[in-house]
């Protein structure tokens, strides 16, 4: 296994930049998720790392080798594709044998390695079948096996779970994580599903519009998103983001929708760092409490609708034209259109500069 270093990589199509000056280092044995909405450049970044498309600028190192100008076959990487890309005219055994044959591995070694990988992935009984005779989960394992047989330096995975049904996806998520742990493999994993990234990755790189937004541990990305985009993208349901204006020299926020909220001294310092009066207030569903009776300093809203999920009920609350989603214990009952009062946990509050979208830090 080896570390992967992307330095200032750029990929342009015409005047459009699919990847714009992206630099990040994946440590040896680290599981990194590239995550972002479709079209954000994450798959392009993966394909650039694999060498399937050519860089417009920048350099890529795998281990201590500069692989920028190498063919995919010479980069010592393995890749798992979203549609698995199993060779349809070959049996599972031959699919697994192909990468070894291409590297002129001796026959006896090929057989031993295939048996080993098949045992690890529990696909020994499928070796003589054709890919089309396998279920989605089995195809997924074979694809993983084909990546595994030749001990590559890096595993690249392009949305490997998105073609599976929901139940299997959860199961494979755990297996992939175990796979990473057992092999101490270096893995770069592309997904549009932030939940996959958060649950599996050591670090996640959030991308948007070809630009790397934030590269940090899932905990840090979740707790301290660097900008409005990351805040809205990571976490489910998404963070509540509402525009507001700084008033009283930073001591409070007021909204054009009519509410007002006094800030803690810490948050007030952040608010004063804003480039103008306009800020965006961010609060996750779990950091707001709801009360059917007036709270001191609480913001009054109106229940819009309820989404019970069993162990948590999500309450959609309207503040003027803004809608917030707030989680409550299922025992507390709210009726649509009833007035409610929102209490905000000031220590979990996020403030962003409305002009730049960047998180505000205390000056």
């Amino acid at each position, binding site marked *: 296994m080896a570390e992967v270093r992307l330095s200032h990589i750029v990929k342009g199509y015409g005047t459009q930049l699919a990847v714009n000056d992206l630099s990040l280092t994946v440590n040896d044995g680290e599981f990194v998720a590239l995550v972002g909405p479709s079209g954000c450049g994450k798959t392009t970044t993966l394909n650039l790392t694999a060498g399937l498309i050519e860089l417009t600028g920048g350099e890529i190192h795998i281990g201590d080798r500069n692989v920028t100008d190498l063919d995919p076959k010479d980069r010592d990487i393995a890749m798992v594709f979203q549609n698995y890309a199993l060779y349809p005219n070959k049996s599972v055994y031959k699919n697994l044998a192909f990468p070894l044959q*291409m590297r002129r591995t001796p026959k006896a070694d090929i057989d031993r390695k295939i048996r080993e990988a098949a045992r690890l992935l529990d696909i020994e009984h499928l070796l003589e079948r054709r890919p089309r005779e396998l279920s989605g989960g089995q195809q997924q394992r074979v694809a993983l096996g084909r990546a595994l047989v030749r001990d590559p330096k890096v595993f690249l995975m392009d949305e490997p779970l998105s073609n599976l049904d929901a139940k299997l996806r959860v199961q494979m998520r755990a297996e992939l994580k175990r796979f990473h742990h057992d092999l101490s493999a270096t893995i770069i994993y592309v997904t549009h599903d932030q939940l996959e990234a958060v649950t599996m990755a050591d670090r996640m790189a959030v991308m948007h519009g070809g630009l790397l937004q934030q590269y940090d541990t899932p905990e840090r990305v979740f707790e301290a998103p660097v900008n409005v985009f990351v805040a809205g993208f990571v976490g489910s349901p998404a963070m509540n983001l509402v525009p507001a204006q700084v008033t009283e020299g930073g001591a409070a926020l007021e909204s054009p929708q009519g509410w007002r909220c006094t800030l803690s001294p810490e948050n007030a310092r952040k608010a004063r760092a804003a480039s103008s009066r306009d800020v965006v207030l961010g609060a996750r569903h779990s950091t707001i409490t709801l009360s059917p009776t007036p709270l001191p300093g609480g913001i009054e809203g109106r229940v819009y609708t309820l989404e019970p999920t069993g162990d948590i009920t999500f309450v959609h609350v309207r503040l003027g034209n803004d809608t917030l989603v707030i989680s409550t214990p299922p025992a507390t009952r709210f009726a649509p259109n009833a007035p409610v009062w929102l209490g905000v946990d000031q220590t979990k509050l996020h403030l962003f500069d409305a002009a730049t979208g960047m998180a505000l830090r205390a000056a």
Partner: protein
Amino acid sequence: MKRRDPWRIGGAVFLAGLTIFALLPMAWMLITSLKTQFAALQYPPQWLPKNPTLEQYSLLLSPGNPVGQEFLRYLFNSLWVSFASTVLGVVVAVPAAYAFSRFRFPGRNLLFYSVLLRNMFPAVVFLMPLFIMMRWLGLVNTQASLILTYLTFGLPLSIWLLKGFYDNIPVQLEQAARIDGASRFQAFILIVMPLSSPGIIATAIYSFIMAWNEYVYALTFINNAERLTLPVGLQRFFTEYATNWPGLMAASFIMSVPVVALFLVLQKYFVRALTEGAVKS
């Protein structure tokens, strides 16, 4: 489904009519080829020959007599011209179609549509231009002129058909192969080619049959009796003094054998090529 559906009955009647329409001339050809010269010209015609004979076939297929010699030469000429234009066509069409399907290069669309342009005009329109070009090239009266001409017909459709085929093969398969250690060329040869073999077979059949049946160009470009292909050769040969109908019919029957055989053996590929890709995506 027990209930008689008028649409089904109508369809069956229509198909039966179509089959009779297609097969009757073939049957008549076969029947006539088994008659004697005299019986072939009788009126009212004999529906079934009273004294069926294989005389014409043994005459045509034995190299010992002048008739057989000439016929077998035409047959060989036709086989050679069709085979050569098929092989050349596949060799050119496969990489061309692959390039059109996979690569984005300046002028790609223009080039692709100009390839199809050739098939938008009736063949006769190109007769004189091609003849003049062949004269420049010094190829008039050679089989090379026919092979080149058949390529100009066959290639556009072959490229077009194969491109559709390559479009249906997920690009990830080649990417996987390239990551697994194959060069771009190896990925094409080892992974893509086997998957596209139904398409290649279908286009090969198409090119072969087209070359096999072609008449107008063969008639115009070649005068030397030594080099004639079957369609023209037959017509000249059997109508030189008076038409020998049983002989002509026997020769025609032999001529349709390779085409029918090709279709019977390879029709499943042909159907697959025209209806679906090799892999479901």
